């Protein structure tokens, strides 16, 4: 194996084994497609050995690559064993394809950053006036919304006149008069409902019931009526007190 120009050992300069391999491949000064993989393997192994002699700490992935390359080299040199898959040639081809791709991208990156770059080589206007977007709102409202809103405000805030319709009610006076008249005829306990007019219905009946109840309380206070109720919401019974 011809030893290529010795590389200076600078392990920190490489971004991994593939990067180092590419640099070594370049030192063969051939198109990567003409690359001698065996020579590359030797170059790599030499490099790693030198680094070890210098007691440099080598990252594990460099050593893994070294082991794999050593295996590849022996496989390439030994008589072919058709049982082994993939074949050493295939492994070597894959390595070469990877190196080609890395080299291509490395070169592309270099060409890219060498272009005339905005803010470095070419410049946009230093003090542009700027463009304005004037955002205008076109407000929507219909005449109905306007009128309805005013109606609602008026309804909400105008002094409300309460017109109480003529309601069919039994006044307290009527109820007192009625209950005191009827009670004279009832010696037995009678429900308060039995004191209501028979034709009373609806809200008039409710009114009559309420007034009759208050009338009963008033008459009880006067000592003219007794009231009995077994429990809350149970029927309310009235009976006259004999004078």
């Amino acid at each position, binding site marked *: 194996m011809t030893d290529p120009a010795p590389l200076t050992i600078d392990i920190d300069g490489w971004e991994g084994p593939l990067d180092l391999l590419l640099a070594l491949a370049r030192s063969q000064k051939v198109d990567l497609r003409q690359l001698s993989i065996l020579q590359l393997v030797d170059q790599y192994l030499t490099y790693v050995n030198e680094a070890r002699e210098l007691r440099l700490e080598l990252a594990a992935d460099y050593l893994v690559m070294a082991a794999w390359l050593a295996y590849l080299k022996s496989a390439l040199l030994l008589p072919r064993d058709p049982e082994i898959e993939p074949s050493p040639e295939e492994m070597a081809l894959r390595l070469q394809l990877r190196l080609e791709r890395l080299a291509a991208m490395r070169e592309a990156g270099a060409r890219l950053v060498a272009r005339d770059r905005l803010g470095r080589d070419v*410049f*946009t*206007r*230093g*003090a542009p*006036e*700027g*463009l*304005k*977007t*004037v*955002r*205008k*709102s*076109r*407000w*929507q*409202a*219909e*005449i109905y*919304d*306007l*009128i*309805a*809103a*005013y*109606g*609602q*405000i*008026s*309804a*909400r*805030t*105008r002094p*409300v006149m309460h*017109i109480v*319709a003529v*309601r069919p009610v039994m006044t307290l006076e009527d109820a007192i008069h009625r209950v005191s008249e009827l009670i004279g005829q009832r010696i037995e306990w009678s429900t308060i409902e039995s004191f209501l007019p028979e034709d009373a219905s*609806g*809200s008039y009946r409710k009114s009559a019931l309420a007034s009759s109840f208050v009338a009963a309380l008033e008459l009880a206070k006067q000592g003219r009526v007794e009231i009995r109720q077994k429990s809350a919401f149970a029927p309310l019974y009235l009976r006259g007190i004999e004078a």
Partner: protein
Amino acid sequence: MTPPDETMRAVEAVLFAAEQPLTLADLRAYVGDEADIVAALAALSETYTGRGIELVERGGRWHFQTAPDLANFLRRDREDSRKLSRAGIETLAIIAYHEPVTRAEIEAIRGVQISKGTLDVLMEAGWIRPAGRREVPGRPLMYATTPEFLSHFGLASRRDLPGIDDLRAAGLLDPVDLAFEAAHSEAGGGEAVETPDEDD
């Protein structure tokens, strides 16, 4: 027109990229002492005559600017259609019915405070305008509607706004709670409340 020479191109590029107007000395510092900056500026100035951009000198400093007559192209209006808020429509209604009216008066009628933004929106819409000051302590500003208000709402004049009686007839004055009670008691079979004319 002068064909661009190197100095002229350099002056053009330097002025274009500059963040501030540049003096002759500034230009020399970039382009070089030997160059005939003055001639380049004159040639550029001529080149840009009648174009969208012009080269101008203000107090010994040179810069490019867009041609003043094109200012209208440098802004673009974007119209968004937006619905007026409830506060907005109510405030507008009060102003329309009561104008001229102060903010405090609007609040008294509405029974709710109005934010400054509400009046701003109505002003931006072009529907209201300041209309003098009320001659009371503090001289508050009064507001009134505009001709745009009338045309937007299709009114020939403010007299076309329906009056209170019209509103009542249209059922628009029904207090919400009264209507509720009516509906409620009807459902309960009673005939308690005088049914307000709800029918349209």
